[in-house]
């Protein structure tokens, strides 16, 4: 009776881990395919390419105007990061420190854009942007991307600020600190780690944010991920290797920023949407 149980348990554990391994192996193989393809001269009917080359990267660079696209991407991403911080951190501070009438409604207002998927609110948003002339411009793209990121910053920062004892601020006041000194010497240093974490996460998420940019961008305001989409979409016209080269460039950028972000953040926080416990890092 006992033996059967032990066997059953071991079998179960084995199957669960096999599932995880299967997932990860396929994931990594998928990524490897893209990388291999991007460096292949020709790769049609064999396990591995005939020969390897870097020429596709050069051709992708010019074909897809990657220099412009990359510049645009970074402009958009950094604008989004800066603005979400500027809007979000003070708002988070107010939400964490004050209990005012209507606070629940305001909280709901910040929660909704995280719960509603981008396509659902993206179409009406794009409509409004086009009607006001911001559609297709970089400003429009930045504004659209702010919708999920500002609440994200707020939701990440609120528990962080709540952890800072308000008595520290009172103590600073008692010792004669002006509001500016309070902010600059006390609050900012304490908030910096949390802000860094939140803004790095915003950066990673915005690079990968497809739907909102896709719906609001014009030909000169596309980010890399949107350009990649169009390239894949028109796959019949371009060489697969070229598209894959672009994909690798995109992957490299995303992964580099992911690694940087992970130095400061728990991986699970990247997916913070709604109610999550503040992670113990």
């Amino acid at each position, binding site marked *: 009776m006992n033996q059967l149980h032990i066997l059953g348990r071991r079998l179960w554990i084995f199957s669960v881990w096999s599932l995880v391994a299967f997932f990860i192996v396929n994931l990594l193989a998928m990524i490897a*395919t893209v990388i291999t393809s991007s460096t292949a001269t020709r790769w049609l009917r064999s*396990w591995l390419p005939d020969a390897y080359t870097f020429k596709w990267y050069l051709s992708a660079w010019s074909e897809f105007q990657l220099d412009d696209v990359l510049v645009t991407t970074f402009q958009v991403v950094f604008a989004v990061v800066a603005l979400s911080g500027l809007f979000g951190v003070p708002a988070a501070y107010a939400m964490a420190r004050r209990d005012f009438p209507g606070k629940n409604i305001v909280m709901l207002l910040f929660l909704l854009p995280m719960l509603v*998927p981008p396509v*659902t609110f993206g*179409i009406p948003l794009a409509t409004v942007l086009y009607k006001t002339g911001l559609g297709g411009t970089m400003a429009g793209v930045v504004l659209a991307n702010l919708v999920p990121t500002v609440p994200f910053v707020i939701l990440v920062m609120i528990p962080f600020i709540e952890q800072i004892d308000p008595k520290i601020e009172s103590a600073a006041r008692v010792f004669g600190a002006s509001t500016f000194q309070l902010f600059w010497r006390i609050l900012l240093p304490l908030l910096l780690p949390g802000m860094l974490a939140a803004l790095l996460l915003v950066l990673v998420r915005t690079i*990968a944010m497809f739907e909102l940019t896709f719906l609001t961008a014009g030909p000169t305001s596309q980010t890399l*991920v949107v350009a*990649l989409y169009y390239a894949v979409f028109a796959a019949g016209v371009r060489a697969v290797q070229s598209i894959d080269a672009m994909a690798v460039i995109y992957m490299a950028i*995303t992964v580099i920023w992911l690694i940087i972000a992970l130095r400061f953040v728990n*991986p699970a926080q990247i997916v913070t949407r709604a109610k999550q416990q503040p992670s113990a890092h």
Partner: protein
Amino acid sequence: MDHKHQTGLKVRLAARGLDGVTLLVIPSVMLMIGLFIYPFFYGLWLSFNPKEGSFLANYARFFADPFLYETINKTLWIAMPATLINILFAVPVAFRVRLMQNQRWLTTLLVLPITLGTVLVAEGMLNYLGPQGWFNRTIMLLGLTAGPVKLVHNYWGVMLSLIITGFPFTFLLILSYVTGIDPALENAGKTLGARATSRFRHIFLPLLIPGLAITFCLSFVQAFSVFPSAVLLGAPAGPTRVISIAAYQAAFEEYDYSMASAIAMIMGFVQLGIVVAILSVRGLFYRGPAVGGKG
């Protein structure tokens, strides 16, 4: 006299939580209202102001044209199974992982598909799962099939991509719920003679159901809005013509923003309807903290 009155007002406001600091919320609130609330109401209004016809013309057209109303079915037919599969797999994996000391490597690997995004996953799958790709080659080599299995440009491609990008999210959410259950409860179960399956059935499952309901809602809503995978990996004119494609086409191919708004509204309401249904069932279960007592 005047001065005293003014100070009195400031103090009274502060007692209710309204002072200079509270005003810091205003810019973000205005941003959300302008970019989220207002577009929603504008879209709602616009949907009732079609290019031609009565105020219900858009909706009438949607439900009259099978090419349009069938998108709801097709999207549900993709989103529901994907979400259920993700949850079904995520639960046992979460139960195993919660016992691990160092979870960081695993979570980093699993977060990769989310970070890379749906577009890259789609391109990767086109390469990897294509008829000449490594996946098909491997299963043919192992003798599992005679010829390549068609996994791209069809329903299965989209389904698989939803699982790849959705599973990590579902898993992380469920893991957080599972670790939120007081471990002493499992220990109490053990000392009372409950084996692993009994512990799951009587202790864990009832306490997890509220969390599972929320996870289902969030994952389903995400899956229901599938877009780039449906186009790149699916058959966007046929079985994987999802509702977001219909909305996009109305907006950017027909330039009919009114119709596009109507479709977006319908999309939103279907999602809302299912979420409300799930949450009301959740309300029937114990929803309190999953701890065993004070202390």
